[in-house]
């Protein structure tokens, strides 16, 4: 029940905000997000951490039984951690906007809450249609936040963000629906329990998708990656991100970096890896290569930015490259590292956007030519800035290190020569992938220290119009003091504490993720390497034609049997099955 509440409570408060006067919007937003966070804490407590890989806290209602549509929610440890991240960033986004947003507050806070509900829905849904609805619905609030509350170029940024990600995810939907169709019409119910009738249940479709031949899986991989890769964003479909990040209001950037990008990586973990094991095994080197290009290319572009927000935005391209490299390693260390990376990147990059927003509120510039040496004016801000930079650079002892190190190690372990060694897992990556991706560690130090060296250290530089002798508590900063106020410190502190906690005591989190990850890895190894699946079915090589029932017979494995009856009858069966 918690999961449903987690989606409904923010929605209810959004409606409340819309109905009540604007002065109250802030208050309702605080209550709404805090209430959601409280429910989230309760959910964390109710979750059985002894069996973290099983779906828990589940709830389901029939929606359109004839189509097999259900509203079904449930979480394993991976989903729950990402929901926890969403719920943590919720109040932070509200608190950080108090002074930055002065008009249209109802619109702003209302959509912010809707966004939180949609993101929670993505991680909680156990039904593909619900997943996709929430996945797409995140676009609308984000579009409003950017286009109404962004900076100068906001309209173009919002439109590009919307159209780009929307286009990609429509193709993802096509892929997902194809799997549902395949399940309903091309398999019968002997081997796979749910086959032969229409269902959009994730677990059911997972089994169906695994039964597909390798080349079909390959096409589906392409379709799914269209949406997920854009969302992540993977090179070369990343260009919407720097624009959207730079133009978005602070809270928008925090949510974008913190959670929205993770929808893509989560989608890969939840759908691409377990659904399409044969294709994943085949295409892992290509995905890894793209992610490594993103690491190096994104990192080097960061290095020559003058807009500090754009620098952090491009750093997301580089960072998410590590995350995808870990997924593409297809072993426990890599994938666990990748999921940790999703959380850690949300904390550290989210905090960096908050910090940049705090300076922007004071000096109304993001240009590193106009800002410098802020350490002597804003020592508390500078301390946080250096801290989160170090978390972002992957300094051991802080959270970023654990995940980055594990992603790289996973890639390293997955060398084909090392399958027989005690620490090797075998695969198509290995030494060179880890080495070249590891160069990204050096580049990350280059661009992040360049940023800190400019903005935090060095002689004081302030934009024209701001006196650089200001001991007056700010005059030109509006209601804000020169250095951070208590509210701003309160916003940053939980993130800092979590960075240290996850850096020094990651074991409980790793152990919670491990069974879920091991399931996926074992699935990939067990079903992806089946000889018939890997070689595909001869008659089906001429895709994208749809497989006929006769061809599908060849798919049969010990655990998968094939439709022999007429598909029409089968369809009827599915309908009647649904009617029961």
């Amino acid at each position, binding site marked *: 029940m918690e999961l449903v509440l987690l989606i409904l409570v923010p929605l209810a408060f959004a409606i409340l905000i819309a109905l009540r006067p604007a002065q109250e919007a802030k208050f309702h937003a605080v209550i709404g997000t805090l209430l959601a966070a409280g429910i989230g804490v309760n959910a964390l407590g109710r979750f059985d951490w002894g069996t973290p890989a099983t779906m828990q806290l589940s709830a389901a209602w029939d929606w359109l039984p004839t189509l097999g549509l259900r509203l079904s929610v449930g979480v394993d440890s991976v989903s729950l951690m990402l929901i926890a991240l969403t719920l943590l960033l919720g109040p932070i986004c509200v608190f950080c906007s108090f002074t930055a947003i002065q008009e249209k507050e109802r619109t702003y806070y209302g959509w912010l809450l809707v966004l939180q509900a949609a993101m929670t829905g993505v991680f909680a849904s156990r039904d593909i249609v619900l997943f996709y609805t929430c996945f797409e619905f995140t*676009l*609308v609030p984000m579009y409003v936040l950017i286009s109404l509350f962004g900076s100068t170029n906001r*309209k173009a940024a919002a*439109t*590009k963000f919307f159209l780009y990600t*929307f286009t990609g995810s429509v193709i993802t*939907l096509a892929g997902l*629906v194809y799997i549902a*169709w395949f399940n*309903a*019409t091309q398999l019968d119910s002997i081997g796979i329990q749910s086959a032969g009738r229409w269902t959009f249940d994730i677990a059911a479709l997972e089994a169906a998708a695994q039964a597909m031949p390798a080349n079909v899986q390959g096409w589906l991989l392409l379709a799914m990656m269209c949406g997920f890769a854009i969302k992540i964003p993977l090179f*070369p479909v*990343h*260009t*919407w991100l720097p624009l959207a990040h730079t133009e978005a209001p602070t809270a928008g950037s925090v949510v974008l970096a913190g959670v929205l990008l993770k929808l893509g990586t989560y989608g890969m973990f939840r759908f691409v890896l377990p659904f399409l094991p044969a294709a994943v095994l085949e295409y892992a080197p290509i995905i890894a290569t793209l992610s490594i290009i993103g690491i190096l*290319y994104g990192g*080097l*572009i960061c*290095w*020559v*930015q003058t807009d500090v927000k754009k620098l952090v935005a491009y750093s997301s391209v580089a960072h998410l490259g590590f995350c995808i490299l870990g997924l593409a390693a297809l*072993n426990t*260390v890599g994938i*666990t590292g990748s999921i940790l990376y999703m959380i850690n990147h949300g904390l550290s990059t989210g905090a960096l956007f908050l910090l940049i927003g705090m300076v922007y509120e004071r000096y109304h510039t993001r240009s590193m030519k106009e800002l410098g*040496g802020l*350490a*002597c004016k*804003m020592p508390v801000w*500078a301390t946080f800035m*250096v801290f989160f930079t*170090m978390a972002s650079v992957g*300094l*051991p*002892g802080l959270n970023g290190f654990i995940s980055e*190190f*594990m992603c790289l*190690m996973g890639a*390293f372990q997955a060398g084909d020569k*090392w399958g027989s*060694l*005690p*620490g090797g*897992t075998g695969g198509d990556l290995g030494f060179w992938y880890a*080495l070249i991706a*590891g160069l990204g560690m*050096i580049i990350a*130090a280059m661009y992040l*220290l360049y940023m800190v*060296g400019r903005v935090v*250290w*060095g*002689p004081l530089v302030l934009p024209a119009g701001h006196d*650089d*002798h200001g*001991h007056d508590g700010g005059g030109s900063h509006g209601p804000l003091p020169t*250095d951070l106020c208590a509210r701003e410190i309160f916003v940053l502190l939980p993130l800092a504490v979590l960075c240290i906690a996850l850096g*020094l005591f*990651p074991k409980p989190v790793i152990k919670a993720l491990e069974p879920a990850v091991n399931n996926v*890895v074992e699935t990939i190894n067990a079903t992806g390497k089946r000889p018939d699946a890997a070689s595909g079915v001869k008659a089906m090589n001429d895709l994208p034609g749809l497989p006929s029932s006769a061809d599908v017979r060849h798919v049969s494995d010990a655990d998968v049997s094939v439709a022999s009856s007429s598909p029409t009858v089968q*369809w009827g069966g599915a309908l009647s099955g649904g009617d029961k």
Partner: protein
Amino acid sequence: MTIASDIMGSILHGALGAPGASGAALPAIEAGPWWVSLIPALPLLACILCGVSAAMRIKSKLPAWITVGCLGVSFALTAAMFQQLAGGRSVTIAWEWINVAWTDSGGHERSLIANFGFYVDSLTCLWMLFVTGLATLIALYASEYMSHDVGTGYCRFFAAFGLFVFSMACLVMGDNLILLYLGWEGVGLCSYLLIGYFYKKPSAVAAAKKAFIMNRIGDLGLALGIFLAFVQFGSVEYKVILEAAQPWLAAAQAGHFDEIPATVQLIPILLMIGAFGKSAQLPLYVWLPDAMEGPTPVSALIHAATMVTAGVYLIARTYPLFLVSEYALPIVAWVGALTALVAATIGMAQFDIKRIMAYSTVSQLGYMFAGLGVLTSTGAAFHVFTHAFFKASLFLSCGAVMHGFAGQLDLRKLSGVGFMKGWQFVAIAMLVGCLNLAGFPFTAGYFSKDMILAEAFVTPHMAPIGWILLLTAGLTAYYTFRVFFRVFVGPKYYEPGDEVHAHSDHGHGDHGHGEHGHDAHGHAGDHGHAAGEFHPHAPGWAINFVLLTLTVLSVGAAGLYFLGDHGGWVGKMVHASSANYPPIVDLAAHSGEAADAHAHADHGAHGSFLGMDPHKVMYYVSGIVGFVGIAIAFALHYVGRKTAATANADKLVPLLGPIPKLAQGKWFVDEVYDLLIVKPLHLISIVFAYIDKLLVDGLVNAFGWVPRGVGSGLRPLQSGNLHSYAVQMAGGVAVLLLIVFLASIAGL
């Protein structure tokens, strides 16, 4: 007979303690006492308390006393740990850090385990004794040295200081390579923060950044080495790795490297890249001289005595891995020897006394690496130990001069300092330090350098290294005493440095209080003297006490050489650890007595120095070389010198052609790196930024234009109105669902 008892012990342990691990050469691992964890924890506590002090805006010397206290207790605990050790090994686990488990395709349970665990053997104790001891002393020194910054940067300085000692303790005491990596990067962070302590100076900020990035290059090598070690051995813990290397040691000793898997031989080559970065060896040494932008106590502790020896520690700790690799140790030896030579030549031509000391550090680290490379891990460790004391005292003496003369470090602008009132302690400390560094007979530096030199001639094929190091020893003696004869003796003269006008330039601190702002002109009078009437202020009790203690210790370190055979006390410590050479497993074939007597039997042909036994003759040769160097410095920089700025050496300069200019310009290595690596990379980055904007994003925009051109009739759909997008989206979903739905009914 330590070794014999070790062997007996290991045989017993092998039989009783570790079934399956036949021939285990190292003593079994016991559970260590819990308080070992306090050794790293106390400096961390000091760091946290200093942070709290900063938050509470404490304007006293409290942070310094907190730090000195915590570090002192930490040192006492280290001494207790050493007392308890008694030749064994122990592991204390503070908490479990990283733990991932899976089942591999063969059905084996595998796991990646890295705990916050502390591995204690004699090598750990050796390192921790001088790390915590020196840190305590230098923190005491810094309490006075940094007193200008009380209330501003004082808390920040000591917080970073405490964090450094914590990181260094993790590096040295960690029971696995990942915790070592944590300490490794942690000391890098503290180095970054402390080099950039005077953060308003662009040069300090640049130097800090350079140090961090150069170290990161090395760190990548270290990380890859850790990955490969894990892949090969299935663990990153020393207890597994060191044990796993044992079976190959015999093959390596016999020269059968083809029996050892290539992956095993690759591990040390990756690890050493990390060591070269952290310990400032070719080609990654250029960050260390620039690191002198930091306050002098930092230079003494981090950039001379402790952090930069981490590379030596890493190699010594994983010495069995290096021994089973055919090319690893020869590479280490050559890199070390060449670094020693190159750094010495640059040091000879510098005028900034702190930079000279920095280059001498690079050069001496080269000796240590060469020592490891020529199979005398004892010599290397002994040199680390003696160097830590005398180099710290040299730096702190330079720091006292810098502190007293308002930042003056140019040896052409200071002379006869030793004869000025109140500077005697500093001069004595400096003289003792210089004698040690120059390898003057019967000093500690003489004995430790000697071991490395002798062994270079003993070890087959390493004689060229010996000659390079011998030449470098002469150069070292020259440039060391060039400083002494110029600055501390001769006619009395000084010019104050540029900090006389802005005394608070000692780091404006981070608290942005107006009174410490940018208007330094208001401060000239603060200290009771205007620019015209500058008085050098001689050091106070804390600085003098620390200098005296270090001087006594650096003299006393020579005595350690006589506490036992084969490298004295340090040798005993090294022999009882994994860094021992020859490896214990090989000696087990001999009887203990014979092994002791013929420690070099397995070298095959015992090398010679011009037909003589290097072990004996080197005492004389290196002594003479040191004398010659000092004599040349005396002739060129003391004899007949009337002023501070000129000396006999100046007459020599034109005769050498472009060499002095090149050496003064540090052989222009920085410039070459900039031209070959930094500039091209920057250019590529700019090109990438344009490609991203014009090509990658341009293609996307082109896609966007196509429908816009085609469907101008559908203009209302692209009104930019949010609601229409939402409707389109929902419509798109519905249409797609419908298509699939209909297709499935109609088509099938």
